[in-house]
């Protein structure tokens, strides 16, 4: 038997959740495969009980505890993990902040500074998935801004005004990022430590680049709003396709595939913007 202590953490970052284990117990030799499987299950259970988080973070932590059966060698792939027991308290009354993220103190109801290392998904109370109910997102956004907007704090202390400004700005940023599929997808990659570098696409994507060139040139040459609309509809269709493909890739955890698809989406999103500009130039 073994005990896994999962500390209560007020603030989580997907990448930085750690589990404290009794490493002495785990490094025991003679640890059977059955025991290691139990360990893996226990960790998952503990995580799911203690933390309301997304499946991808649980999966990434599970991978650290996947039992490795190397025939006779009975070793466990274990990382020496440590935990930071973060217990935030209200700056005003020192009451512990149990909610995550905590916008206001439960006890004295004073506004709190913006949380660090909290994902936009948890700020707006959404699951960390690519498909999102944007109406629900908008509702939550408006609800938060009604509480946090600096206009509500004009009679409060300077410190509270400052916190409300930062909280409001953070909620704005979170909403803008999660609203559109492209920025949402890019943010999800960022959470996994993957970014689109500032480099150049040439030989790798020559077919795609030729297609983009042709569409851009055609858009440049349109003479009627109808022609521009046609290109616009075509582009919308391509973006919808890409959204589906990105969703599949992210659900499967295929990050490199998702990254390539999001790059493609960026190019077509630019074309969609240009179509809008073209249409407004006709007015």
């Amino acid at each position, binding site marked *: 038997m073994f005990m896994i202590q999962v500390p209560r953490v007020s603030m989580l970052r997907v990448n930085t959740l750690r589990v404290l284990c009794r490493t002495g117990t785990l490094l025991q030799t003679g640890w059977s495969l059955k025991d290691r499987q139990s360990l893996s299950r226990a960790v998952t259970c503990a995580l799911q009980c203690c933390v309301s988080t997304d499946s991808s973070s649980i999966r990434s932590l599970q991978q650290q505890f996947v039992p490795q059966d190397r025939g006779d060698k009975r070793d466990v792939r274990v990382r020496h993990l440590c935990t930071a027991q973060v217990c935030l308290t209200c700056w005003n009354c020192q009451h512990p902040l149990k909610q995550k993220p905590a916008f206001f103190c439960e006890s004295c109801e004073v506004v709190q500074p913006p949380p660090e290392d909290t994902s936009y998904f948890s700020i707006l109370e959404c699951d960390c998935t690519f498909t999102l109910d944007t109406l629900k997102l908008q509702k939550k956004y408006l609800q938060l801004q009604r509480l946090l907007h600096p206009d509500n704090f004009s009679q409060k202390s300077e410190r509270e005004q400052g916190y409300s400004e930062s909280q409001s700005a953070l909620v704005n940023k979170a909403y803008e990022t999660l609203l559109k599929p492209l920025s949402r997808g890019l943010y999800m990659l960022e959470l996994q430590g993957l970014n689109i*570098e500032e480099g150049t*696409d*040439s030989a790798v994507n*020559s077919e795609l680049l030729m297609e983009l*060139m042709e569409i*851009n040139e055609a858009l440049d040459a349109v003479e009627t709003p109808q022609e521009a609309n046609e290109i616009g509809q075509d582009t919308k269709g391509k973006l919808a396709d890409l959204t589906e493909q990105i969703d599949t890739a992210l659900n499967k955890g295929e990050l490199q595939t998702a990254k390539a698809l999001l*790059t493609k989406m*960026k190019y077509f999103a630019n074309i969609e913007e240009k179509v809008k500009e073209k249409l407004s130039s006709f007015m």
Partner: protein
Amino acid sequence: MAGLMSGATLRKCISLLVYRGKLFSPEHSTSCSYHKKVVDHYENPRNVGSLDKNAQNVGTGLVGAPACGDVMKLQIQVDDNGKIVDAKFKTFGCGSAIASSSLATELVKGKSVDEALTIKNTDIAKELCLPPVKLHCSMLAEDAIKAALSDYRLKQDKKE
């Protein structure tokens, strides 16, 4: 000076600057806009157009920037002595990308194929006074030149 201002006033000044900054498009800073050289290339681009990509003495470079979604095509026409006699470009992207590729076509004209290989993005960025956030546009233009030269080389190798 800042020491004489109270914290609240200083904060309000900073937020005012930030607000004004938001009025401009992302490429603009609060105190200046695009450099006049960039504006010149954007409003009077040199060498916009296409060359016959199937011609033996034409090299075509097609590059894209994934981070910002810009697409750039640069073509060169080379004579029998290996000198670049004509260059054309088509770029779909921000003003700095358009200016960088426009300048690139001016820089390659008259150079030999080997000399054109030495053109660096820093030359382009310096000439256009590109801000740090737009340096990648000059990089894209350099890559477009290299891609065009490489395509030309490939065609010559196939011919032999």
